[in-house]
């Protein structure tokens, strides 16, 4: 569900509150990636990373939002995603990024995996302050 969409269609903010929303995030990211001219492999990577992070926002953050931006830098074009939640936050980010570490019963590969699937990865979190993850994939 798009709660905001500016005139240039550069930015969309989607709410993440259910597993249906995760599907919607994937679809939005895929169409942005196609529009930015990303190849099929890059499309799949950013969509998969978005899926992981959206599910983290839902399961660990108790729901939140994602801002989907079509970005350009000179001739380069890409997609940037910012996931935000006001959940409990991550006490130890390095541990959370380690493969196989999980608190939610998953495989423990989502956060580290989405870092490897992105060109840019930034995470900002502290206990009680929620979590913000920003990733980007460039053509």
């Amino acid at each position: 569900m798009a709660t905001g969409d500016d005139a240039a269609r550069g930015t969309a903010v989607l709410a993440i509150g259910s597993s249906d929303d995760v599907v919607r995030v994937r679809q939005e990211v895929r169409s942005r990636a196609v529009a930015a001219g990303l190849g099929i492999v890059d499309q799949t990577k950013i969509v998969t990373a978005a899926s992981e992070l959206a599910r983290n926002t839902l399961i660990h953050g108790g729901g939140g939002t994602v801002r989907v931006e079509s970005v350009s830098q000179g001739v380069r074009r890409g997609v940037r995603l910012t996931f935000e939640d006001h959940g409990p936050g991550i006490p130890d980010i390095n541990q959370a990024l380690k493969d196989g570490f999980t608190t939610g019963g998953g495989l423990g590969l989502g956060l580290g995996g989405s870092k490897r699937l992105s060109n840019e990865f930034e995470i900002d979190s502290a206990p009680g302050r929620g979590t913000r993850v920003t990733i980007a994939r460039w053509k």
Partner: protein
Amino acid sequence: MAQNGSGGLAQTVAEHQDEILSEWLALQVSGGALQSGRIKEAELRTQCRTFLDLLRDGLEQGGTDPEAPAFGRAKEVLAEVSRSRGMQGFTPTETAAFVFSLKRPMFNALNRTIEAAAGEGGGAVRAASAATARDTWDVTLLLDQLGLHAMEVFMKAREDIIARQGREISELSTPVVKLWDGVLALPLIGTLDSERTQVVMESLLQTIVDQSAEIAIIDITGVPTVDTLTAQHLLKTVAAARLMGADCIVSGIRPQIAQTMVHLGVELDVTSKATLADAFRVALTRIGRAVVKAPRAEAAAPVAARRR
């Protein structure tokens, strides 16, 4: 005051009921209510007459408060009309028009009472026009509320259809097919959320028992995104099948999915093949069969049949 006003209103409706009904019907017909062919004029007439009768009863007993128990029957009929329209594929506008097109005939009927009073002279006209203004407002409020009620029921009917279709899709899109004696295939399509995976797993495991299958091929050509959750679901399904003595082969992993899974760090501890055909060949080899080219059609046909 309201009692007084609605008493007049009920009287107006009762006096002009036939005119209101025919005007209301004509308005709906000219508005295109019958164009889609989903409803016959006789049926529409019956719906209108029933609703108008009950509305009049409601006005007589319950004033203009749509929440009053006197309007219960009217709302039931309205809900029934809206629900059936939702099921029949009417648009929201067409459904709402049923109630809202009643406004004009009602206002016209109220105006006629002023005109009647005009014959009696000054004081009567003033009193009648004041009453009419109040009644008009009451009718508007009442019909707006009933219109919203109709929309609520309409949306609910539509949502029920969507929910039912969702359930149907989740069943339809997880068929387990038999490829050969002891070889099953499960072509997965779409999103593997937890609910779907449950259905998939159950039907696969049950079919393994029913068919005494040795090998199950899970084909994910139709799965657009394989993330860690999907991978985990797949691994669990494979593990459960293994406990039942069946081996799984995962097929249909496209190049971009393979690269993404490597970056994610997901390891599928299972035989995997690029296409369903390759997986089928592996499965046949494992059960000691092979597909060979028949030397010549006429001579070889019975031989090939016997080889099986």
